[in-house]
């Protein structure tokens, strides 16, 4: 079994498409009218088999009031989160700042690498990590730390 599509609620599909393709360099992989629903997907540049569905939720899938509540949650920043991995997170951070992307967190070294956090154009949180080892130790009881200890 494998994951092929992850759905991400967005507030405006055209704006989201522009953000993911032009700002993050994703590839548009589908765009079709399914009769009441626009099926719009993008894929990360280094992972073409994983599609992200840029989804607008509304009637008849959910009633209008529920759709408005979901939109409000996304706008508040309580919608979805995606985690990405890149080779040079600091370089990417500088590029994103130059592009005017909303920054939540500047680069910070964690035990799992160095990460940043940004918002997409809808308010979804995107965490971008570079896995180059840092000096921050893994928690001793993590599965990763135990596996590393067993391998040594």
């Amino acid at each position: 079994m494998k994951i092929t599509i992850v759905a991400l609620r967005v507030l405006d599909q055209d704006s989201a498409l522009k953000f993911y393709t032009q700002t993050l360099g994703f590839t548009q992989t589908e765009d079709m009218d399914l009769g009441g629903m626009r099926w719009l997907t993008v894929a990360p540049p280094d992972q073409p088999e994983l599609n992200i569905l840029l989804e607008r939720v509304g009637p008849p899938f959910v009633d209008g009031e529920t759709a408005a509540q979901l939109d409000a949650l996304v706008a508040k920043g309580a919608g979805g989160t995606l985690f990405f991995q890149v080779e040079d997170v600091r370089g990417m951070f500088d590029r994103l700042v130059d592009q005017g992307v909303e920054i939540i967190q500047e680069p910070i070294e964690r035990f799992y690498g160095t990460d940043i956090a940004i918002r997409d154009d809808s308010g979804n949180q995107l965490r971008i990590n570079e896995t180059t080892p840092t000096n921050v130790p893994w928690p001793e009881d993590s599965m990763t730390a135990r596996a590393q200890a067993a391998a040594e």
Partner: protein
Amino acid sequence: MTPEQIVHLRRAKDLVDRSYAQPLDVLALASHAHMSPAHFARQFKEAFGESPHQYVLTRRVERAMELLRNTDATVTDVCFEVGFQSLGSFSSAFRRVTDMTPTAYRATAIGYPPTVPGCWAAQWTRPVGRGAEMEKPPPPPRK
């Protein structure tokens, strides 16, 4: 509340998350959200459940908790690192949020954090304000 207003409020909240150590007051946050201070304060609390001032304090205390857990920095250094202007205001806010002094918290938090990414843990272990009553921090790990 319109989606546009919510977006402005979220951007102000993100500013606190990003720049918690800067001198952020309601006036500055309201300006960032393109609202009057009184309107901003009401709308922020309605959207996120706590006042902007309380959110700033809670965010700073949350960062202080992480520094106390994971570094050897002195309490004084942590106080100024997270944006407080005096040890008195830091101790007062810390005690109000965690019901402990910074030194006592550090002693109980050895071995923390949990085994999830620190960025994520920070969001899930953030102390939550409920008016004057604040939740206690997560318990120390099992021995």
